[in-house]
């Protein structure tokens, strides 16, 4: 049975799932709509009933007031610029007479949430040209095309008949989750905004974020009747009547659009850490516990948690919400949380405002600091830990070193383990064969772990978006140059025509023959008409030039207005997909025997794996990683700035797991990081890895020559000698010459060679 309808913010952009052809077709019938909302559509002509559910009012999120006609209408940006329209964000809530008051609050909060969830601040006025179709993923630019080839399409509503389904959804959809799940495929392929450069975020994530932010605001906002009878909206003790008043300006520098907003919120980034060291295999149950607790928090606080990975949570919170209470389950189990929290006006709050603020403080960037400070922007770093005592009587817990340990003896080994850590041990043996069969065999093992560095991701997204915009700007500048050349060409033609006319006029003056004068007069008129035509063309071109200049300025501004949060969510989703795909593809490549030799020891935790070391298996793991990375992140950076990395740690099975983990947790990672205990430590970029595999591993290069080079390098410590040796042998070993000339050290390719070819260490 259907429950009473609710306001579902996720539906607000459902119109973006309609194929443009439908709109064109209806336009021909005189009953189309502008943009992606259906405020102005003529339902009678369509023969469809207008939805009556609360969610219908979400369609008004771009409503404007037409100052001439004194009516409410869908927003027209040109008219907005010319002040013919007034945006709803500037209009007193009490004057919103197009909507019942109880739904007015829904719409008010929806518009705020929509602004916060957009990938480029709505402060940037105009729109760039529409992209052909589909989302432009910064890390996978061919994504839409490849999905299209698989038969997937972004448009969920492709015919006029489909519009019935669309309005059925607005009328009957029961929840945001239901909508996101039903249209997942289409939403993931549709950009939040089809115009460049805003076409980088998926509509799925945008709708999901709007839903979350809306509900957090809704939990904290209420309608208040003032003594004079006017209605205000109160949030965190601050009353406002316009959206503009609530969010303030959208800029953090300059002189315009920098007003202080009355409503603030927090974006809180939490890195989940632990002091524990894995003494026994069961201690890695801690990772399982972490996964469980993160999932539990993400599900209980599903609106506040924007996204979560196994070791990172980002939350959107009102100023007074207790963070420690939310994270209590993690703290109770001995995890501690490194927190970076930004408190700011809704108009400027975004996931990199913390970095911008700290950078401004470091560089003493006064113009920006003046704005940030006047708007009460705060950036905090905190550590949240469970309560600790001042002192602990010996013995301290061997694992967490945060509580008193209880003596426990197993197999003549005495340990001191606290109750909590013992409870984690007692969660079971994650992978029994490791400590029994494998250990008895005395094999070498390779632990491997994927990581996603959120800080590197923020850096890369900012740069990648900047490059994307720069590329568009370059194209625009070329267009501008062409237009300027065309203007100059026309001016020159015009000048010639004017000179010609001048000469003709002079000639006419000298003529006495009336007939000739008439003919010449006609000629002069024709030239004058041509000049007028050219002037008109020049005028049009000048307009185009000015529009282009404005577009370029707006594109430049968009880099500063970029909000990477939605992209971070999209990227994290793809990362999780990539991990699942890795295990699937790897499994397809493995023989039955190999399948017994590899494990993902924590179920549902796809970042961690272990296998009995063999050159074949390690090659399969690395190559599968390369495959899935190319599939999901072909355009993502893949060197020491890579947000995603894979680390492999190889050692005898007796080597403690905590030491493998310590290696995984080290900073300064590259795309691939390999540590072979007591043999070598090496880091590779993706390009290095690919070329070494291609030139050295697959081409069966001479290992003796590789050894010779490494020995020379160790003995002489002279790059010149190495270069001479490689140069002298360039005909015999051209692939080595090529690697060296690309700046790859011999030790790098020899170590990888030994690892993948299994040469005795």
């Amino acid at each position, binding site marked *: 049975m259907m429950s009473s309808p609710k306001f579902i913010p996720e539906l607000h952009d459902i119109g973006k799932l309609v194929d443009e052809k439908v709109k064109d077709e209806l336009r021909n019938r005189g009953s189309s709509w502008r943009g992606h909302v259906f405020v102005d559509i003529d339902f009678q002509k369509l023969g469809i009933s207008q939805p009556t559910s609360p969610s219908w009012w979400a369609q008004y999120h771009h409503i404007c007031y037409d100052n001439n006609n004194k009516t409410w209408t869908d927003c027209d940006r040109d008219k907005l610029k010319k002040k013919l329209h007034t945006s709803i964000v500037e209009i007193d809530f009490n004057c919103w007479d197009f909507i019942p008051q109880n739904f007015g609050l829904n719409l008010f909060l929806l518009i705020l949430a929509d602004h916060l969830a957009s990938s480029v601040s709505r402060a940037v006025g105009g729109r760039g040209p529409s992209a052909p179709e589909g989302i432009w993923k910064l890390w996978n630019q061919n994504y839409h095309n490849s999905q299209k080839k698989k038969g997937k399409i972004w448009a969920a509503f492709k015919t006029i008949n489909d519009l019935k389904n669309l309005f059925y959804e607005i009328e009957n959809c029961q929840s945001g989750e239901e909508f996101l799940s039903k249209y997942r495929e289409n939403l993931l392929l549709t950009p939040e905004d089809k115009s460049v450069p805003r076409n980088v975020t998926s509509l799925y994530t945008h709708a999901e974020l709007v839903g979350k932010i809306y509900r957090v605001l809704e939990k904290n906002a209420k309608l208040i009747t003032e003594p004079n009878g006017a209605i205000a909206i109160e949030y965190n003790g601050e009353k406002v009547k316009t959206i503009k008043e609530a969010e303030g300006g959208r800029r953090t520098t300059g002189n315009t659009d920098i007003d202080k907003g009355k409503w603030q919120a927090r974006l809180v980034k939490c890195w989940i850490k632990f002091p524990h060291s894995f003494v026994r295999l069961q201690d890695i149950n801690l990772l399982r516990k972490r996964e469980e607790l993160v999932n539990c928090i993400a599900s209980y606080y599903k609106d506040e948690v924007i996204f979560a990975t196994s070791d990172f949570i980002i939350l959107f919170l009102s100023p007074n919400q207790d963070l420690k209470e939310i994270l209590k389950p993690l703290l109770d189990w001995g995890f501690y949380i490194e927190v970076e929290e930004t408190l700011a006006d809704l108009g400027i709050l975004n996931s990199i405002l913390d970095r911008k603020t*700290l950078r401004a403080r470091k560089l003493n960037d006064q113009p920006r600091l003046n704005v940030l400070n006047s708007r009460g922007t705060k950036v905090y770093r905190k*550590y949240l830990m469970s309560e600790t*005592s001042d002192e*602990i009587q*010996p013995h301290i817990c*061997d694992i967490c070193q945060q509580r008193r340990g209880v003596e426990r003896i197993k197999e003549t080994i005495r340990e001191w383990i606290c109750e909590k850590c013992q409870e984690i041990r007692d969660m079971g043996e994650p992978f029994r064969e490791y400590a029994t069969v494998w250990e008895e065999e005395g094999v070498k093992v390779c632990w491997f772990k994927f990581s996603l560095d959120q800080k590197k991701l923020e850096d890369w997204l900012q740069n990648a978006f900047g490059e994307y915009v720069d590329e568009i700007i370059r194209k625009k500048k070329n267009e501008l140059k062409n237009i300027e050349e065309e203007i100059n060409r026309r001016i020159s033609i015009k000048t010639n025509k004017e000179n010609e006319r001048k000469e003709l006029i002079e000639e006419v003056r000298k003529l006495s023959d009336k007939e000739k004068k008439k003919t010449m007069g006609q000629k002069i008129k024709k030239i004058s008409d041509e000049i007028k035509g050219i002037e008109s063309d020049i005028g049009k071109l000048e307009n185009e030039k000015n529009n282009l200049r404005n577009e370029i300025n707006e594109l430049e501004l968009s880099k500063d207005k970029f909000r990477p949060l939605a992209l971070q969510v999209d990227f994290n989703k793809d990362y999780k997909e990539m991990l699942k795909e890795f295990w699937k593809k790897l499994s397809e490549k493995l023989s039955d025997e190999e399948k017994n030799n590899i494990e993902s020891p924590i179920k549902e935790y796809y970042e961690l794996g272990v296998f009995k070391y063999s050159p074949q298996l390690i090659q399969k793991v690395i190559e599968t990683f390369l495959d899935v990375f190319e599939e999901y992140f072909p355009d993502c950076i893949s060197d020491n700035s890579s947000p995603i990395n894979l680390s492999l740690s190889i050692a005898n099975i007796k080597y403690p797991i905590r030491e493998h983990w310590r290696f995984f947790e080290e900073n300064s990672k590259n795309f691939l990081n390999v540590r072979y205990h007591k043999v070598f430590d090496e880091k590779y970029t993706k390009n290095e890895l690919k070329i070494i595999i291609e030139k050295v591993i697959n081409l069966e290069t001479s290992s003796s020559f590789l050894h010779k080079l490494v020995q020379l390098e160790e003995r002489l410590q002279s790059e010149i000698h190495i270069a001479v040796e490689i140069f002298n042998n360039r005909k015999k070993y051209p692939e080595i010459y090529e690697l060296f000339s690309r700046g790859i050290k011999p030790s790098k390719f020899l170590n990888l060679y030994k690892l993948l070819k299994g040469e005795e260490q």
Partner: protein
Amino acid sequence: MNRIKLLELHLEIGSVIIGERFKGGTFRPCQTTIPSSTIEGALRHYFGVEVPAVGYFAKDEKNKGNTYEFDEFTYSVRDKFLNVSRMPITTVYLRPRGKNGKIEAKVYIPYDKGVSLKDELIGAEFQIGALKSKGFGKSKIIGVNEIESEIKQGILKVKVFEGEAGEFGIEPISSVYGYLFKPDKFSIGGIYKRALFPGSLVKAPEVLLKEVTYYDE
């Protein structure tokens, strides 16, 4: 500007093991910091003084890299009662990077507490850390300077007893806590005391900071 006067000791150390507290295994890791407990223990043992101290391994002046690298040492403890050797234990240790080098370290003592020791400390040789009987931890103080360090907000890079932090001008803003062992005055027993660990957000002398920060407090 808020500054604090400290005594800065420059140490040259051979191979050294500053063990972590893990038990129950045959493989022992090694820390890359010099906690208060370690350096205070050494000063107490060799100079008979009870002074607060903190330290860290310094970076190479030229290439800004570590002056140490990791290696492993395997030994067997003899059970004197049973007259048998126990299971061999492998420990990680730090050894100087490069040939004939030394690990460089810096140790700080609050000026008032250390100034009377200054002459005694210059050129002094002693041992720190574990497995001293195997020759680990030989240290020499090659320089003692009186310095003034500006108090700034930043990320702490040392392990210091919470109760002694104030003596170094360290004021916690948000702490990462751990525990360090504080022996009793007879060095027979002792207790674990709460300590500020690296990563803590503090106001502290700049020389004890990994990086200066600009967070709101």
